[in-house]
């Protein structure tokens, strides 16, 4: 026998309690990691190279305010822009019986948008041509197509929620491989026609020539339309999405609050369990003291036991989350609500740091009690 095996035997002497302790730590840390991942996925937009190249131009007053369609000619003349297309969020209800917009529909100019959607795969040239030729057609992200069991040639009906018009679109192609394979794209011309050609667009979506050029382009656009009847705010796609993210502030606070409560409850449970386990062993600890174990050696025994249980819990909980989320199709499971559900090394680090803190805190009280109690007092608890 050696000290580690003695510690292990002590930790496992009440197997049910050890198992429940480990499981409570594991479940709590699994929940903590899950919350952290969810928070990250909700608040951190995907940051690919394309999102830095793509620029959104919206009305400076408000996103809800449309922009004049005539701005297109001006935008075409601004240096550093490779492509520009209208980009109007339609926001309709699919089939009309859904209670909220479950995926985004954007009105664009198919020809002009091609460079912007160059990462989309799965749509043949013939399908692209067919989409361009038919103003009532659309291309649809594969996730949405899979979710509703749609295929090329099917028709989709939408009830307008923002615009006072309904849509009926024919699927010309189904794409995948973009940062968000849920969206539907259809003709701005079709929307204009249904609205009676109002001469406006929701926003402009454009592609800068290079990442270095992108900030210059946004600057040029903002300056170009300054002091006009429709001043604009141009920003990278990433900055635009982050603008939405700022609206998640309460969610952040909520998830942060839940995480703190989880950790706090976990500390209370573990401290209580560990204190109970040590209190039951006061007589033995007194005997160990009598036969020559010093305080620091008893501290090591207690700390190693609580630390070991907490770390084992972390291994199961945080490690389990890592294995699970790396092996499930989160897009399918959440119907596309989450595109990714990645457990980062930082999150694993946080979980193990919490476990370490837990191991330490749950050992403190028993250690104080053991330090205080003399051998004689400990022996008196025997009889």
């Amino acid at each position, binding site marked *: *026998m*050696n*000290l580690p095996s*003695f510690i292990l*035997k*002590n930790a*496992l*002497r009440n197997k049910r309690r050890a198992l429940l302790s480990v499981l409570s730590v594991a479940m709590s840390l699994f929940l903590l990691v899950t919350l952290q991942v969810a928070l990250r996925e909700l608040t951190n937009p995907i940051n690919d190279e394309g999102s830095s190249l793509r620029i959104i131009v919206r009305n400076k007053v408000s996103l809800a305010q449309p922009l004049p369609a005539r701005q297109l000619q001006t935008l075409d003349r601004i240096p550093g822009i490779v492509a520009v297309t209208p980009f109007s969020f339609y926001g309709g209800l699919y089939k009309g019986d859904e209670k909220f917009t479950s995926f985004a529909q954007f009105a664009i100019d198919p020809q002009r948008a091609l460079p912007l959607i160059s990462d989309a795969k799965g749509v043949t040239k013939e399908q692209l041509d067919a989409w361009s030729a038919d103003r009532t057609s659309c291309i649809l992200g594969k996730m949405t197509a899979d979710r509703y069991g749609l295929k090329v040639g099917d028709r989709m009906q939408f009830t307008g929620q923002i615009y006072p018009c309904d849509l009926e679109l024919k699927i010309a192609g189904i794409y995948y491989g973009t940062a968000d394979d849920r969206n539907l794209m259809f003709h701005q011309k079709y929307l204009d026609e249904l609205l009676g050609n109002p001469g406006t667009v929701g926003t402009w979506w454009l592609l800068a020539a290079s990442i270095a050029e992108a900030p210059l382009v946004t600057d040029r656009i903002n300056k170009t339309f300054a002091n006009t009847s429709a001043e604009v705010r141009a920003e990278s796609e990433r900055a635009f999405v982050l603008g939405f993210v700022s609206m998640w502030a309460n969610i952040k606070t909520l998830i942060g609050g839940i995480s703190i409560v989880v950790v706090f409850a976990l500390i209370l449970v573990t401290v209580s369990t560990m204190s109970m386990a040590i209190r039951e062993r006061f*007589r*033995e600890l007194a*005997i*160990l*003291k*009598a*036969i*020559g*174990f*010093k*305080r620091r*050696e008893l501290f090591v025994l207690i700390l190693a036991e609580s630390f070991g249980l907490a770390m084992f819990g972390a291994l199961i909980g945080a490690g389990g989350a890592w294995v699970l989320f790396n092996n499930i199709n989160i897009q399918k499971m959440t119907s596309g609500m989450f595109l990714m559900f990645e457990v980062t090394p930082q999150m694993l680090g946080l979980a193990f740091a919490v476990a370490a803190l837990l191991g330490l805190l749950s050992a403190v009280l028993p250690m104080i009690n053991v330090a205080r109690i*003399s*051998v*004689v007092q400990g*022996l008196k608890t*025997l*009889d």
Partner: protein
Amino acid sequence: MSANIVTIRSLSKIYQQGDINVTALDKISLDIASGEFLSLMGPSGSGKSTLLHIIAGIDRPTKGECRVQGIDVAKLNESQLADWRNQNVGFVFQTFNLIPVLTAYENVELPLLLTRMNRAERRKQVETALEIVGLADRAKHLPKQLSGGQEQRVAIARALVTDPALVVADEPTGNLDSHSAQEVLGVLRTLSHDAGKTVIMVTHDPKAAAFGSRQIHLEKGELSK
């Protein structure tokens, strides 16, 4: 018998219980020779366990001096006392106090984990100790698989595994039937007679006390005989 291993002079122990001072030991002076088997007798509350605890270095006197092998035990600090106890004192308690998750072998080995002995050296010591108490064949048994007498003999093996000069036993037969008690007392006497250990045993039982080479009585914190 040879020189004194324990020398006690004017030893007092006073406990404070609220506003009241309770004198557990009152100016005790006592010499215990090396290799002696001393039986400490007395009624409950007479201070015999307190005296044993002070000699063994797990309690401190209020006044007076207690020297064991020439060392004033009360002057050692906590850490020094722990080392001293590990090397010089073996403990046997009424309730055995074996660690339930460890086998007899591992229980006996426990004090040796604090020494610099390697595994082979430890094994030799443990096997010898278990042989002395006649339990070599029970080495792999857990305490719950042993009888009370066997548990106490394992506790004795644990007490002598570090080869201490002094073995202290507090009511070692208190929880045993008469047959087991005889066995345990026989082992303690053998330790004193054959191995030259000094054994100090606290007991209520005159029959058990008779196994000792000397008996002393405590009454209200004072030596009565």
